């Protein structure tokens, strides 16, 4: 079994000319134009003195073109850990080697979801003329959750004094899985219809279990082990103890993955995913079956299942959604048909940016699913108003969010706001209270 803490690396197969680009220093064109221009002027005007003015520049251009740089440049990028949590530091190093003496600029470009810490603001080094190999340590901070590529290692090489620079791609850096920061959550939502598998939710039905339900007179077919000897002796006839069976529920997380190509929108999605992961984790620990359906610019579908495997699969899907949020070119399409179990509690996790998502939640409710919504508060991500028009736009956006929440409430989908200050726990408690009130009012309204 591979050591999970061992460094992972990708070695390049770069050879001379592979993926290489040559470009001239700005002085090269200046010297060539100056040199040949002076020669042409000398011939045109008949003044040989002008040829003497061009000769130095042609000599310098020739001297600068004589050597194209080292033939062999190789490099690797390694990171110490490929699984980190949001805001963790990622330590790694780039190792570059080349033939002969050269001035080398090394750069790691194209990274996503991380921010350079050292060196900063770019992950790159400008090395003075010298010989390889060199080892260049770097530190990044995991900025947002998801599976992120750490980019590509590029070098720019030139022989000292040369007027030609060669750029070459050396290696692809490994990818890193940034796990969502844990949210404190110790409350469960009550699944719609618990299933007959060992779990933590108490069912209204009775059967084998450990939680006491009631005592009743013995009936033919009852197990002898259920006899309550003390009660039977006191009442003079056989009575049995009846228990609540321990059962699990099914929870389907419906993640609103509609977002735009901007930082604030991606942060809104990240908050939604953190809340979804918190809800999923606590329900999986309670032996519930949890599924995930992400809808929007990126898609994910994971049928409800329980256990450790489900936890990893769910996290994997969430990380893929996070990676798609950071990479505007990466689109994921759902290729499997979504089968929502009839007994599933549907938990929408949304920042209410999409009418489509709102319609979907109401549709699930209309088709008989117990549906609730955790509304992620992203009001702090709105830009500070610069003028009255901005302030009005902000008020309209917040009013629109409230109106959409009311629309959900009226449609039978209780909502609760997940704020950055109070977290998901308070929202879950609020949802539980609202679900209880809703069930009570439905029971009262039902015909007797």
């Amino acid at each position, binding site marked *: 079994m591979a050591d999970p803490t061992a460094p992972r690396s990708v070695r390049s197969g770069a050879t001379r000319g592979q993926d290489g680009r040559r470009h001239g*220093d*700005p002085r090269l064109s200046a010297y060539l*134009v100056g040199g040949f*221009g002076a020669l042409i002027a000398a011939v045109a005007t008949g003044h040989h003195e002008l040829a003497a003015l061009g*000769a*130095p*520049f042609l000599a310098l251009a020739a001297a600068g073109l004589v050597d194209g740089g080292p033939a062999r440049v190789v490099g690797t990028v390694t990171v110490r850990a490929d699984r980190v949590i949001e805001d963790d530091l990622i330590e790694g190093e780039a190792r570059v080697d080349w033939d002969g003496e050269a001035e080398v600029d090394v750069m790691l470009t194209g990274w996503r979801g991380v921010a350079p810490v050292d060196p900063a603001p770019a992950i790159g*080094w400008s090395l*003075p003329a010298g010989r390889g190999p060199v080892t260049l340590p770097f530190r990044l901070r995991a900025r947002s959750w998801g599976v992120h590529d750490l980019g590509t290692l590029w070098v720019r090489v030139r022989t000292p004094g040369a007027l030609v620079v060669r750029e070459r791609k050396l290696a692809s850096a490994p990818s890193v899985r940034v796990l969502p920061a844990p949210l404190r959550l110790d409350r469960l939502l009550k699944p719609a219809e618990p299933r007959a598998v060992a779990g933590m939710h108490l069912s209204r039905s009775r059967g084998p279990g450990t939680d006491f339900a009631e005592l009743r007179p013995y009936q033919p077919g009852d197990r002898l082990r259920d006899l309550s000897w003390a009660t039977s002796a006191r009442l003079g006839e056989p009575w049995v103890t009846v228990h609540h069976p321990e059962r699990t529920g099914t929870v389907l997380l419906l993640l609103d993955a509609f977002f735009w190509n901007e930082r604030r929108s991606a942060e809104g999605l990240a908050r939604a995913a953190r809340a979804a992961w918190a809800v999923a984790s606590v329900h999986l620990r309670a032996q519930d079956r949890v599924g995930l359906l992400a809808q929007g610019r990126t898609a994910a579908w994971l049928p409800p299942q329980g256990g450790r495997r489900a936890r990893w699969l769910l996290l994997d899907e969430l990380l893929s959604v996070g990676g798609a949020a950071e990479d505007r070119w990466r689109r994921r399409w759902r290729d499997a048909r979504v089968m929502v179990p009839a007994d599933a509690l549907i938990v929408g996790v949304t920042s209410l940016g999409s009418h489509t998502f709102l319609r979907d939640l109401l549709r699930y409710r209309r088709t008989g699913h117990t549906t609730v919504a955790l509304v992620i508060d992203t009001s702090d991500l709105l830009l500070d108003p610069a003028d009255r028009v901005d302030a009005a736009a902000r008020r309209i956006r917040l009013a629109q969010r409230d109106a959409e929440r009311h629309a959900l409430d009226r449609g039978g989908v209780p909502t609760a706001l997940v704020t950055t200050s109070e977290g998901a726990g308070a929202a879950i408690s609020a949802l539980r209270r609202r679900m209880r009130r809703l069930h009570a009012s439905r029971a009262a309204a039902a015909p007797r």
Partner: protein
Amino acid sequence: MITWWPTRRRLAVIAVGTAVLTGAAAAWLGGAAWHVDYAAVYVAVALSALLSPAAITLQVIAGQVLAASVLLRPDGPAPPLLLVPVVAGVVLTAELLGLVARLDTPLRPRPAPELPRMGLSALIGGGVYAAVSLAGGLSGPTGLLAVALGGGACVVLAVVLARGMR
């Protein structure tokens, strides 16, 4: 994004100073008021090359025009060897401007022994100019042949010197 690292700022100041000295030397050698105007244009072009590396070509051409205006002045040509510092100054300014352009990078530059190499470039520029000017001083076809041979020899010498510095 333009990054002005401290090293880059220092080199930019040295480049502008070199351009001003070169222009002043050429204006002094020229002696006329319009030589001062030419020198001012040369310095302005050198300043613009701090912001746009493409303007280094204009700086070299402006330097050549400035030197040519002194060399071919209406009141009689100046001795070519007097212009060696001007040509060396134009080369040194171009080298410094090239380095300033190269340091426009988000990568923190490390100190490098660039200045001796630039000094060598200026030496090559001035030396080649002096050698070719002396060869061109010979009259008739011999002079033309001497210019061609001298120029070729200087190119080879420059290559050998540049390789020796690496």
